[in-house]
């Protein structure tokens, strides 16, 4: 059993994403209030908090997936490398190619494994020919630690894989557009412990290339995979800092109550 690793060095100190005074409203419901976060490059940042605290909402702000919810309204500023992603000039479609996303429930397209991974590069025109596309697909499946399991059946449907394999396929699909940031919305909540361990290991490896933001309900998972942790409660960002510090020496009493299991 893997120990909870609390001491982990953060390799860079460059900010990838900066969020300032982010407010989100669903209709009249003020779901997210005054959130300020700096997400570092090449780091795993975990968002924890009880259900309905706004952590998934905030995650979906980062690639403007909230645009698809008609009633959602976002205020404040979120910048990706200094550029405001809510600027009217920004095309959310282009943004989402830079900020990939993995969802809670594995959602492969009902197409072949190959087509699942190749879809992103195809629509963005990242490859010039079939050989290049083959290479990208293989590289992404390797990075997602799925290549050895599926290399002989690339043309079989992605929906026929097991849950853990499907989730790794979704990760491969997300990294195939070579994003800069990878958002993961409770990627392990539908998986068994073994598949979870595989995905967590994968997340740790992905850190070398991407900035990873992961929403999780499991504090153990946050502690295992992340270097930075943000604790959300009732729409507020309560505490944000090094994972070790949050779990061993929380400054806010609400954080302490949550990680010791008294609220949430």
């Amino acid at each position, binding site marked *: 059993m893997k120990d909870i690793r609390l001491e982990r060095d953060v390799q860079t100190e460059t900010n990838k994403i900066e969020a300032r005074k982010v407010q989100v409203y669903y209709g009249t419901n003020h779901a997210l209030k005054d959130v300020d976060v700096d997400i570092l490059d090449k780091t795993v940042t975990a968002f924890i908090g009880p259900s309905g605290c706004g952590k998934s909402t905030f995650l979906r702000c980062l690639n403007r997936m909230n645009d698809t919810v008609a009633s959602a309204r976002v205020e404040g500023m979120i910048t990706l490398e200094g550029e405001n992603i809510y600027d009217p000039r920004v095309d959310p479609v282009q943004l989402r190619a830079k900020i990939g996303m993995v969802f809670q*429930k594995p959602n492969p397209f009902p197409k072949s494994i190959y087509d699942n991974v190749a879809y992103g590069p195809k*629509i963005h025109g990242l490859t010039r020919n079939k050989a290049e596309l083959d290479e990208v697909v293989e590289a992404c499946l390797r990075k997602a630690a799925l290549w050895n399991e599926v290399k002989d059946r690339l043309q079989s449907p992605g929906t026929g894989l097991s849950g853990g394999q499907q989730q790794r396929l979704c990760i491969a699909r997300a990294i195939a*557009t070579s994003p800069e940031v990878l958002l993961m919305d409770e990627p392990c909540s539908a998986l068994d412990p073994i598949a979870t361990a595989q995905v967590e290991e994968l997340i740790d490896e992905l850190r070398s290339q991407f900035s990873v933001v992961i929403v999780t309900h499991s504090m153990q998972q946050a502690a295992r995979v992340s270097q930075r942790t943000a604790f959300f409660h009732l729409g507020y960002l309560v505490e944000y800092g090094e994972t070790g510090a949050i779990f061993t020496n929380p400054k806010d009493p609400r954080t302490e109550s949550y990680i010791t299991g008294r609220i949430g």
Partner: protein
Amino acid sequence: MTTVPPTQDAVPAADAPRVAHSLFAPDKRTASRNAQESRFRAYGLVAIVIALLMLVWLLFSIFSAGLPAFRQTFIEIPVQLEAAVLDKAGNGNPVEMASVTTIGYGKLIGRALTAELEAKGIDIGEMTPKDLVGMVSENAAADLRDMVLADPKLLGTTVQFKALAHGRIDGYFKGRVTMETAARDNMTSPEKLMLADKMVAAGLMEMRFNAGFLTMPDASDKRPEAAGLGVAIIGSLYMMVVVLCLALPIGVAASVYLEEFAPKNRWTDLIEVNIANLAAVPSIVYGILGLSFFINFAELPRSAPIVGGLVLTLMTLPRIIIPTRAALKAVPPSIRDAALGVGASKLQTVTHHVLPLAMPGVLTGTIIGLAQALGETAPLLLIGMVAFVRDFPGAPMSGLFDPASALPVQIYNWTQRGDPGFVERASGAIIVLLVFLIVMNTAAIILRRRYERRW
């Protein structure tokens, strides 16, 4: 509403001893509940049996009346095509030969029949050659004329001609006409029926499969034996092509826009309610719309499949939009999220993922919509498709503007005619229509079963 307070003895005291009750004998409440349930089952069973009996009755009456339409009595005799009679100019020019009317050909048939009966040694008694011509359909002379005009080289030769027997003779073999009715009928006589029996015995007359029922055009009131569904089938086919080509793309585009792109506000709600209402609008209303718009305003020709198709398109649109929207709704949002998440645009999400997944539902809805349109009669009556049409419409596209009939209208038309032979024709046409509908609905079911996805 008043509630009766529980009486003292209705509520057993907590310390009252439990009445020992065997599990083998149901108590009063259980028995009454069980009785209720078995009564309910019996009602259901009775309902099913009634429905099935009705269906059996319907099918029996249609098939018993309609199946004879697929068999027809023919008289097969050698006919000498005398050049002197048929081609008075003697140059084989079909244009000049056309001046010989069916009366001339009828005489030829009469002579041929007389000669053949003599050759076979059948006694014709008191019957004149004119009476003998009454054995064959009035349409036979026209058929022979068409045959000769189409191929003038036949002149002077003797051809083996298969003539339709007269409707009354045909009816005699189908049990519709008896000696008693023939005695009172000025279109036939018992002598003719007896002669028909002799001709069958001599092998001159026989009943065989009637392909003409599916290929021949309609015929006039006195010639039920020559009436066929050819024009009606082509007309219906043309209309279905028009409906498919218009209703499917328009319906799918409207559904995709409403479901995937349109903002959800009061206007789209209003449109949605109206689409649902349009699906319930009586079809004759669409006929009035078609009459006033397509014929009176746009001045499209009457009785044309293009107008019928346009009217049926209007009628079918809501019936395609509603199941298409349901099919689009049934595609799980996780697929849309996945596509948007890798940076697909809204349109790419729809065309690459959502629409292909919804396609089985869309096609099922379309086929069922088409099947409904195929059986629709009322709007076609108003745009003049009920006219008597004997000429086949041309090939598409110009053929879409030629007058034609349609299957349901042809059925309606035939049920209006006096000759009892048309009852059989109408029932036969119903069988044809039912076969088309069953084939289409089966295709819809197969599509749905085969491509149904589970997530």
